[in-house]
């Protein structure tokens, strides 16, 4: 079988352009940085109706017999590799490939098991080329040639080369953006089938930060029953304003188990997002003051919410149900165990077990 690098060289025959092999490297050395380093807007205002009287809010216990309002869990996962270099117009730019998977699992509480909802799961391979190599039309032709020659379908992406950025990061970001598209599509499809309800909510792993959502024809109302739960957050992120302005780390480090912060407002592409922090575990058992705290995000989906903030009772109820998600844990199996909701961990493992091994994937090139 012809290798993909050979197919690229055979297809793009332009003077001065060549695809060259390199030492193949798995780029997932820091798997969590997308959350830790995500760029966030300022969160200056409280966004809760009514605003709480104190800086922390207690979360009530829910009896074990009460069904959870959270039923679905979505996770996206990718493995990215630098699989070659492109000599193009005097530049020496990386060729980034990735395996991407998105999975939704349903927790069937009565049967005590998790079931992947295959209609909403997707797996794809992608290659990110520098935009200087070829036009979008060339990409389509190349994609067809790769599929025809190697039998493997790849989504071909173009990353925009910027003078002040590492092109490897740009390629990886393109693959991640592709993964975000697949996640968004899964939410859209679930909503289309009216699976997401107030008593059957979806927890998405990571922040609710989708780019160009409106441009794709998606309605934010679909996100009414979607929560973005992040395992990590930037502790130096400032919230509040004036004299009350503090870094998130300063606010959350004092939370007791089951306590949450007020909801803060932040904006993404002009949409209002409420975000708050909840401590899932006893602080005295944690290795650092911020371990065991999750960040939760929820879109404001109508004008009333946008103006008055998210309903405090609803936030407290959601927090109480999320608190129940703390057990069981992936302790010992994942360093992020203290904030890694177990069903999300299950979805993540489902994706990873469905991807090709590094050796096999790299051998395609």
């Amino acid at each position: 079988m012809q290798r993909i690098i050979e197919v690229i060289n055979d297809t793009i025959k332009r003077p001065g352009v060549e695809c060259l092999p390199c030492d193949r490297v798995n780029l997932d050395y820091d798997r969590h940085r997308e959350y830790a380093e995500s760029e966030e807007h300022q969160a200056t205002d409280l966004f809760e109706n009514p605003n709480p009287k104190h800086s922390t809010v207690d979360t009530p216990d829910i009896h074990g017999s009460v069904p959870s309002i959270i039923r679905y869990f979505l996770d996206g996962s990718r493995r990215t590799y630098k699989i070659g270099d492109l000599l193009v117009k005097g530049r020496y730019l990386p060729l980034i490939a990735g395996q991407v998977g998105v999975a939704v699992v349903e927790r069937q509480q009565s049967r005590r098991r998790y079931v992947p909802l295959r209609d909403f799961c997707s797996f794809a391979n992608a290659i990110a080329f520098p935009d200087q190599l070829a036009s979008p039309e060339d990409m389509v032709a190349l994609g067809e040639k790769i599929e025809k020659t190697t039998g493997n379908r790849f989504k071909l992406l173009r990353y925009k080369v910027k003078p002040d950025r590492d092109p490897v990061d740009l390629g990886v970001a393109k693959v991640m953006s592709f993964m975000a598209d697949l996640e968004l599509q899964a939410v859209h499809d679930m909503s289309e089938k009216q699976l997401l309800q107030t008593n059957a909510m979806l927890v998405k792993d990571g922040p609710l930060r989708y780019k160009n959502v409106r441009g794709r024809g998606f309605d934010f109302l679909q996100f009414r029953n979607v929560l973005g739960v992040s395992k990590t957050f930037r502790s130096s992120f400032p919230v509040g304003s004036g004299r009350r302005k503090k870094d998130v780390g300063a606010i959350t480090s004092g939370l007791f188990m089951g306590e949450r912060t007020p909801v803060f407002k932040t904006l993404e592409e002009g949409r209002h997002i409420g975000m708050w922090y909840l401590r899932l575990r006893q602080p005295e058992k944690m290795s650092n003051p911020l371990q065991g705290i999750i960040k939760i995000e929820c879109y404001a989906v109508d004008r009333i919410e946008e103006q008055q903030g998210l309903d405090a009772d609803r936030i407290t109820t959601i927090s109480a149900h999320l608190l129940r998600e703390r057990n069981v844990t992936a302790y010992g199996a994942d360093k992020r165990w203290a904030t890694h909701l177990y069903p999300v961990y299950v979805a993540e493992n489902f994706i990873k077990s469905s991807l090709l091994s590094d050796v096999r994937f790299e051998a395609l090139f």
Partner: protein
Amino acid sequence: MQPKVIGKVTATERKPTSFNALRFWLADDEEIRIFDVIRIRHIKDSYTYAIIKDLQHITDSAGHLASFVSSDFGDVAAEPINPRMGTTIAEAEVLYNSKNIEMPVRDAALVETADVEGVRTALGLVGFRRPIPAGYISMSYGAEVPIEFESSYILGPEGAHLNIAGISGLATKTSYAMFLLNSIQQRMGQDASMILFNVKGSDLLAIDEDPLQPLSERQIAEWSKCGLEPRPFQNVRYLYPYAERRQANGYSNTSAPRQILEKQQREGRAQNFYYDVDTMKEKMRLLLADVDDPNSTIESIYDEVRDLPASSWDAFREEISRRAQRGQQAGSKVTVQSWRKFNRFVQTRTANPFFAEMALTSQDERRQALVANAVRQLKPGSILVIDIEPLPDYLQCLVVGDVTSTIRNIKLGEDEDVDPSDVGRVIIFADELNKYAPKTDSGGRSLTSILLEVTERGRSLGVILLGAEQFRSAVHDRILGNCSTNVYGRTSPVEMAKCPDYRYFPESHRASITRLEKGSLLLQHAVFKTHLIKVQFPFPCYYKEDVEQ
């Protein structure tokens, strides 16, 4: 029963499938047991059959501490809303492939419940010339598979002898032996005769009588599953120790129920065995079989005893006493010390009333018979039950040794009174085999020697030993080594640690043996394609007191 998919094969880098073994995960709502047979869809539209060896439930928990942490750091009242991901992994041993393919089964191959015919083929139960029902396998998914022995591997000439080991009262050794003998009688008819020694109460003293309580429908169905009729033994005679003085039981020293004994006597099926002096002069070695004689001092007496002029027990004992006195060994090569030792044994060991002469009066009532003569009357298809329960160990050894050596002599053509072909194959059932052939004996004991000869030459002679004991570790190795079929009942872990025979069992099988329920046994038979099969067998169908239904 339609096959049902219950799981999928899992082959990993660390635990791959092989031509001999595989593992599969089990669907959440399925239940299987060790020793179940399942089938796997394999290449070229074939099926591979495998027997379950072990079951393990695994989760993604990295360790016990993860479980502790997952309960809010040790709060026993915590109720996690998220069930931990886990599955049951079954380990199975490959038995057979329907197209004789020896390639390892593939990852993700479907695992199904097996069909009865397929299981029988996989276990090697087809093509038997003369099958002997040996119980049935009850699979957890509802299938019931009748199990048979091949007669030529039980009764010769290919293999012979069967041994049953297990804890008293729980291993159901005697019940299984009786089921198997019943099965042989029903299937082999006139080809085999049997000699049974009764060693416990009145257990085997009414085996041709109907049970006290009729069998339930379920119990009758168990017999049908094996293809047998639930019926007591037929053509049985009984031999009881002779009592010199008339007792409630006549001249029988036995704990047999009175009405049963009277019926046997009425029908002429009961006799009382005795030993007269002339017989015992020849068998004196058997009487002292358990006595240590490192310098062979007693051994040298046996020849002289044979020529003693005494013709009654009183005269015999008097003569031995006389020789034990100083200066009375004229013409004897044996020292006075040896005579004294021998005298002590004779005086104590011949005190039992069955050491008697043939009575001159009331012979019909006394029903006296020499053991050897009773054995000589054995005909194919008949059963002789000898009650040795009332006797002390050394006298039990005497009777067992006498019977066995008589059969051996007949089979070797050394008995002038009986044609070897008149007896047919003879099965001897001896419980507490460790008494007669203990492991500690290096072969010097006369009874052990006889039993060794029987087990080593028996399959060609047609003498079959069906032995049972509580501890295999206490039985002579060569006796066990000659058994082509072994049956294991519930056994203690201590015994398994002591006995090397259990050492090569898989860990799960060893654990299984320690908790076998009543009525379940593990079979090892030369023809089976797997080491051990777990079977159940029908409830006994003959008269027995104190039976728990």
